[in-house]
């Protein structure tokens, strides 16, 4: 009897010990993920659940509350970064993480990521660090000749100003013609002081539309050297154009203190004819205007070329084939096998279709061999895209995105781009021949806590301060004087030294990639 009781007790003990292990075996592995773009989104939509089901991995999404760059810096300093981090690829934070030894060398694991190798192809060679290893994978990589910048004008006002036929024509306007339209609109609306709204100043560059119209690239390449754009002879042409519009009261005088909400507010009201920037930036105000009953109160893209231009090809749509973000696995990752499996699945065509098209058979399917959205998916997306994305999860999680058409049926990587609305149609029709690959210019700046990095930041700070002051100068003479002052201050901040540093990096990169400069003037 004693033996039996002892045996039973022993069995119970073994079972008690084994039960949690058995339960753990069924429990999905959890991977923590910091996505700088995720905002306040929660990972609980149908696509998130399907992704977890297919990979067997539970994702603990870490919110980038506040400034994502600051959070990434703090996590690096505290060594408390999560398993996977998604960072801004153009920022030097990527190099800081690599230099700190915080990222897993993915080159050692490429044999376990067949989908990554197949999908990324040559991109993997281009995103290698200086030691020849891959520490991150690009997001939004691939050649993507989609249009970006132009003059995005109110369609109804355009019809009033030039007539229906010209408003629908793909023929670009010359700068003189377009400026005359701005002046005509301004004369007809004497109460407005923002006929043309432009995006608030960013850092290190001028407005993309004016830059593209004047053939300005992120850097000026001349006689085998790379310089800051301020040295490009055409730089001041762009500044003079903006300054002239400012002085004539056409350019929104408060463009420097706008933010996206204030800008959208202005664009949604009467008294604005055009916006200079990316065509998708006007979607929200266009929806507001059209919801008010004005079917033609939509902002549509138009191309403007310099007077006497020999060609209408302008660098209006610089996009990096190496993408916008960098996604890396950190050395804090306890379950590397699971992280690699997750990355490889997301990067695969099946994973991409799940994230960007939805669940096959429910949200989309092949019709005559072509991916086709099902039901009223497109209508629901066009009616209220942000709510649609939040609720369905389709295109909510944009990770490892290959920004090129599908190889099998040539459909776009995202479902909604398969059907073009009027805004996108006009952008494709009018903003032609503007694409160039800006990958060669990305990440040239000195990184980390070095004197060179400090000098680079000093140079950029000077530029950022002078750009709006030049545009807002009361006379063209003062505008030119500010330009001379800016050059002198940039020089004293170390511009020439930084240019020499970046020039070396740039040409070494071109040699490594076997490329010629995209635009040497």
């Amino acid at each position, binding site marked *: 009897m004693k033996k039996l009781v002892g045996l039973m007790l022993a069995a119970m003990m073994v079972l008690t010990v084994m039960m949690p292990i058995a339960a753990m075996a069924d429990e999905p592995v959890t991977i923590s993920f910091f996505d700088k773009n995720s905002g306040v989104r929660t990972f609980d939509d149908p696509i998130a659940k399907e992704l977890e089901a297919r990979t067997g991995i539970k994702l603990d999404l870490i919110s980038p509350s506040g*400034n994502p*760059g*600051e959070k990434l*810096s*703090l996590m*690096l*300093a*505290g*060594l408390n970064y999560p398993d996977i981090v998604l960072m801004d690829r153009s920022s*030097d*934070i990527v190099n*800081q993480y690599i*230099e*700190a*030894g*915080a990222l897993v060398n993915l080159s050692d694991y490429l044999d376990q990521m067949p989908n990554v190798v197949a999908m990324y192809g040559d991109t993997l060679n281009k995103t290698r660090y200086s030691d020849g290893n891959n520490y991150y994978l690009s997001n939004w990589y691939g050649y993507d000749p989609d249009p970006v910048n132009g003059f995005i004008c109110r369609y109804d006002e355009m019809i009033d100003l030039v007539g229906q036929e010209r408003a629908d024509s793909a023929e670009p306007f010359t700068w003189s013609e377009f400026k005359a339209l701005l002046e005509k609109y301004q004369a007809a609306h004497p109460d407005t*002081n923002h006929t043309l709204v432009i995006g*608030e*100043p960013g*850092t290190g560059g001028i407005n993309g539309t004016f830059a593209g119209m004047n053939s300005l690239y992120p850097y000026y390449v001349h006689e085998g050297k790379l310089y800051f754009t301020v040295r490009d002879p055409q730089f001041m042409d762009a500044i003079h154009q903006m300054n002239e519009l400012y002085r004539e009261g056409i350019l929104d*005088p*408060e463009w*420097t*203190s706008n933010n996206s909400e*204030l800008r959208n507010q202005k664009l949604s009201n009467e008294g604005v004819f055009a916006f200079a920037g990316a065509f998708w930036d006007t979607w929200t105000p266009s929806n507001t205007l059209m919801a008010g009953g004005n079917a033609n109160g939509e902002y549509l893209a138009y191309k403007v070329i310099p007077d006497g231009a020999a060609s209408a090809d302008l660098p209006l749509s610089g996009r990096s084939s190496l993408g916008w973000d960098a996604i890396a696995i950190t*050395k804090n990752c306890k379950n590397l096998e699971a992280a690699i499996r997750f990355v490889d699945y997301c990067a695969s065509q099946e994973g991409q279709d799940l994230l960007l098209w939805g669940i096959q058979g429910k949200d989309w399917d092949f019709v005559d061999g072509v991916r086709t959205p099902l039901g009223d998916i497109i209508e629901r997306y066009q009616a209220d895209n942000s709510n649609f994305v939040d609720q369905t999860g389709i295109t909510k999680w944009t990770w490892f995105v290959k920004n090129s058409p599908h190889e099998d049926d040539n459909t776009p990587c995202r479902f909604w781009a398969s059907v073009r609305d009027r805004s996108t149609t006009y952008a494709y029709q009018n903003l032609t021949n503007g694409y160039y690959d800006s990958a060669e210019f990305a990440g040239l700046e000195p990184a*980390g*806590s*070095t*004197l060179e*990095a*400090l000098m680079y*930041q*000093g140079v950029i*700070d000077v530029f*950022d*301060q002078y*750009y*709006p*002051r030049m545009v*807002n100068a009361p006379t063209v003479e003062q505008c030119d004087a500010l330009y001379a002052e800016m050059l002198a201050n940039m020089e004293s*901040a170390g511009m020439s030294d930084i240019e020499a540093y970046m020039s070396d990096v740039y040409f070494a990169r071109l040699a490594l990639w076997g490329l010629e400069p995209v635009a040497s003037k």
Partner: protein
Amino acid sequence: MSNVALDGKRKKSLKARLLDQKYLFLLMIPGVIWVLVICYAPMTGLYMAFTNYRPSQNGYFYDLFNAKFVGLQWFQYFFSKDFGMIMRNTLATSVLTLLFSFPAPIILAVMLNELKSIRLKKFIQTASYLPYFISWVIAANIFLTFLSGGGIVNDLLMSLGLIKERILFFQHGPYFWWIIAIANTWKGMGYNAIIYLSAISGIDEQLYEAASIDGASRVKRIWHITLPTIRPTISILLILAIGGILSTGFEQQLLMGNNAILNYSDVLDTYAYRYGLAKGMYSYGTAVGLFKSIVSFILVMSANKITAKLNDSALF
């Protein structure tokens, strides 16, 4: 005499006194630990200002003490480049803020004290206290909207005929210093007034009654009774305000500033943040922060000394 207590008994030895008060010392331990861990231990990081610190997988302390020692390199860079502009902006904003925000709560507290209607007093007190609880995100948006080209301030000035053209407040650097000073005052005035009100409430009523019998007017009662009585409080708050003169704000500059006026809006805190955290230049950011701390310390000590000489009352 010094070793003899007033009651004639010999003063106990230190050991005996420690033993007597052992429970009080035990109660003090968490506080001491808190001060050491939270206030003093992080100060080891100040060493970063003299090195080229780069985080790695080796851990914080290893990286900190094995980083390359660069001496005063970061300080030299700061003094040779942006020091002048940053200090000008910091001091201009601070002095203007001090000019407005220091007397404003004293005036408010004295005026509230003179009010007869308790209801009105409470209403004004609550209304003036409320902005203290509004986050800078909301406050900044209020100022941005009110002071925009089409905002209520421009509308008012235009309708009164005071200006012919709308003023673009956020396009002109020097305006920004005034805007920050006014915003700081608006936000903190009610809160600081409470401190003065509590000091005023401690004044003996008999003093006012005696002064009234002697024929002192209301203004004279304020001048000769209220203000001299709250002078120690005024002194202490002045010392604290001078000590914090280099901490002129952070969120308000970040939220209301823009690139067009960056050469007027960038102050020590925003500068250290931009370089130290946003750009990951930890050593440089620490150097700028350390410089600010040293100057603030000197200012507090000087203000304390001067106040002690003038008033017979000081913070320490």
